[in-house]
């Protein structure tokens, strides 16, 4: 949370330009094309009719690649200081725990429904 002490306007602008503005535009175009290709790939997974483990693995790989490129380049995360990177990217790791708990819970609910209510149609 810098910039509380007033700086001369031009100096501040030059500072910002050095920090961010001078990433060559080419980086964005490359990532843009890459995101298009990755989206086309994940759409192809459905088009080609992959099923089961292959399907889920491919979907997750393409998803994380896309998310990673958006966060790293478009959101400038790779040029931030490590403290900000950790403060933002570490907390979501807790979600692994939530997902794990809910997978167990849903298995339990599923078998409760099947065994005690005889509701299986699939």
């Amino acid at each position, binding site marked *: 949370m810098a910039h509380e002490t007033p700086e001369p306007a031009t100096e501040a602008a030059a500072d910002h330009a050095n920090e*961010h*503005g001078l990433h060559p535009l080419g980086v964005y175009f490359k990532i843009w094309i890459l995101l298009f290709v990755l989206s086309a790939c994940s*759409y192809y997974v459905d088009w080609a009719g992959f099923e089961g483990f292959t399907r889920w693995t491919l979907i997750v790989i393409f998803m994380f690649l*896309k998310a990673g490129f958006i966060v790293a380049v478009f959101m400038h995360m790779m040029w931030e200081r*490590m403290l*900000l990177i950790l403060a933002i990217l570490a907390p*979501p790791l807790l979600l692994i725990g939530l997902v794990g708990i809910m997978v167990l819970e849903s298995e339990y609910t599923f078998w409760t429904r099947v065994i005690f209510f005889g509701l299986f*149609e*699939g």
Partner: protein
Amino acid sequence: MTDHAETEGVDGIHGVKTLVSDLSTDQEAFKQVHWGKVMMWIFLLSDTFVFSCFLTSYMTMRSSTTIPWPNTSEVFSLTVFGTSVPLLLIAIMTFILITSSGTMALAVNYGYRRDRRKTFFLMLATALLGASFVGMQAFEWTKLIEEGVRPWGNHFGAPQFGASFFMITGFHGLHVSIGVIYLLTIAFKVLKGDYEKKGNYEVVEIAGLYWHFVDLVWVFIFAFFYLW
């Protein structure tokens, strides 16, 4: 300023050094970062958890239901020239959102170059692409509602499908709509020259963070809800 020597980067030991010195100086921790940017990131982090709750509850419903889940490939297919193309509209929406993310990234860049006209037009393009995304979503909702999908049931399969669909895509659509208004506001302020006095175009980047986040969430919705 010695701080300038140890600037940004993820390069291992050096990064850890900046981490320790940032946290141990008994003052502000997020150095050389605009306060608005930190606040936006923290907001986006909290929003990540909101969307994660939706997606996790969707996962829980889908894996605990005893009725087969509707085949999204068929539910979301469009008939073009007599042939049914699976997920066509969703694919178009995905490409539109990625395109808008690209124009936004360029807008941020031109903002820092202090090219107000280009920044304005790129942000305007981003907002228009966003608005067309919302339009397509409205079309998709109408189609599904006409086919009888309701939050409490549908004839394709598990009744929880409707609840998940309307909740997740609705909340995402709300984010896109708010983003369009937000981007237009900032774009017109850029054009007017409101940020010239301070020469501070971080506002464009902060708006960009929000917009890229909307795209980011769609990546997960596309993978988990539509493709899974």
